[in-house]
């Protein structure tokens, strides 16, 4: 049960934090269509986060709500991978982060559709359609910008090199992951890697981008990594902003 709660927070926090990052673009995108599309993905992710964190709170059984988890945990209690808390950077970095995560996210949700836990399978089958579209879109844009101008190519390559060292954490198995896999609730993260590798390789080739290869992967050795609550310095600032009203006016209804 504690492992299940822990795992649900990982899934939910990824959606929450990435959804939050995307929402920072609202009104500042490079074109109106992009502004709308990014807001849409942000909305999808926030919606998914409400379901996952709602279930996490239910499983936890301590009377907390999804909002309590989102707004009243401090940084050490968050369980998202560091990749999704990376600052937006230029729009290319945002898209690359999105692509690298979407490709993982889709494989995960596909695996979860056959979860032994019906609630998990339900949420996954709702989310999988949204995320399939996210991946379609982010992969398409990575390809078009990678194979665009020299400048757009260089930016996308830089984004890839910058973010790739944060992808390994998504596939690193730990005790919680193994407990979930043994219970048939979720696939073992490492088993999602071959499919992810294939999608990434295909898209990077089409984008004429150079795969960074076997580089250092943060959060996969030692004690670090967002899944274990050891984040980057960026998350604290994000939370200070996100949680301000709930912290400043405890117990108020909005």
């Amino acid at each position, binding site marked *: 049960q504690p492992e299940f709660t822990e795992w649900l927070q990982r899934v939910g926090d990824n959606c*929450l934090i990435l959804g*939050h990052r995307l*929402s*920072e673009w*609202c*009104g*500042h*995108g*490079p*074109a*109106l*269509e*992009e*502004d*709308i599309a990014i*807001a*849409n993905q*942000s*909305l999808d992710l*926030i*919606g998914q*986060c*409400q379901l996952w*964190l709602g279930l996490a709170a239910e499983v936890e059984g301590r009377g907390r709500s*999804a*909002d309590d988890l*989102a*707004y009243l945990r401090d940084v050490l209690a968050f369980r998202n991978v560091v990749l999704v808390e990376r600052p937006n950077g*230029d*729009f*290319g970095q945002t898209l690359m982060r999105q692509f690298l995560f979407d490709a993982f996210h889709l494989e995960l949700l596909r695996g979860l559709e056959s979860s032994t836990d019906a609630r998990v399978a339900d949420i996954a089958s709702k989310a999988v359609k949204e995320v399939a579209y996210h991946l379609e879109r982010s992969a398409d*844009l990575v*390809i*078009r*910008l990678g*194979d*665009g*101008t020299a*400048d*757009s*190519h260089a*930016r996308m390559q830089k984004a890839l090199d910058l973010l790739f060292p944060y992808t390994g954490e998504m596939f690193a198995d730990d005790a919680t992951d193994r407990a979930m896999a043994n219970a048939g609730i979720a696939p073992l993260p490492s088993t999602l890697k071959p499919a992810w590798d294939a999608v990434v390789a295909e898209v990077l080739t089409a984008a004429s981008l150079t795969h960074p290869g076997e580089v250092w992967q943060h959060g996969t050795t030692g004690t670090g990594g967002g899944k274990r609550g050891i984040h980057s310095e960026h998350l604290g600032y994000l939370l200070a*902003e*996100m949680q*301000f*009203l*709930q912290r400043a*006016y405890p117990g*108020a*209804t*909005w």
Partner: protein
Amino acid sequence: MTPEEVAFQDRIDRNEKIEPKEWMPDGYRKTLIRQIGQHAHSEIVGQLPEGNWITRAPTLERKAILLAKVQDEAGHGLYLYSAAETLGVSRDELLEALHAGKMKYSSIFNYPTLTWADMGAVGWLVDGAAIMNQVPLQRTSYGPYSRAMIRICKEESFHQRQGYDIMMKMCAGTPEQKAMAQDALNRFWYPALMMFGPSDKDSVHSAQSMAWRIKMNTNDELRQKFVDQTVPQAKFLGLTVPDPDLQWNEEKGGHDFSEPDWSEFYAVLAGNGPCNAERLGARVKAWDDGAWFREGLMAHAAKHSGGRVAAE
């Protein structure tokens, strides 16, 4: 009037819609481009004051609602730029004029949003005033504009209800929340009244626009209607409209109320509102920062225009 102009005016007077390919007077086209363009600009600049609170929305549901609303505004921008494009001006040309300060957007967006209650006040008062303007424009003479307005009004009234819902929650909440709500009303009341523009009884310009059915009501009519609609809503919330002279006038069947400070209106229009520099600056920065992105997509489309359908 030339015979063409007379025929044109006859069509308008018969409530016929004018469509893009059809003949229209130059002034009609120009006025529409300016009006639709400004309205489009207002939608996208209008994303900013509310966008300012998306990352600080107090609950996941409020965050989603606000984000969806601001996204709708971008969508309204899209409809309106498309409507303007049917008149022979491109979106990029319009944006260039905005960024160069040659075209305006609604002055209301030059006020800051300082607390969460402002998300309520903007929805309730600003969208409320906008709807007051836009509902009659659903019957405007230019077809594409009229159709854009019909789509927009549907969403706007939804937004206004959401704004009012925020105000209700704040007013039923803690004393601090209620105080925030009152403060938001205090700050947005007069700017909302200004949204209808100064009294236009003496404006020839307005008369022509009304004849063309581009403008459907006088500014004063709409302002009166807005006040009459809003005052009971404020009362229901338990909030005080910041106008000591506000009172019901039985005889005219409407409220008497104080005029906003028109010198403030002209100051904001001239670029001296609290947020003019920030709002336009944010738009220009988004545009400039996004240049490489748009160029990348165009270059890709050009390379592949043989093999696959151009993406842009």
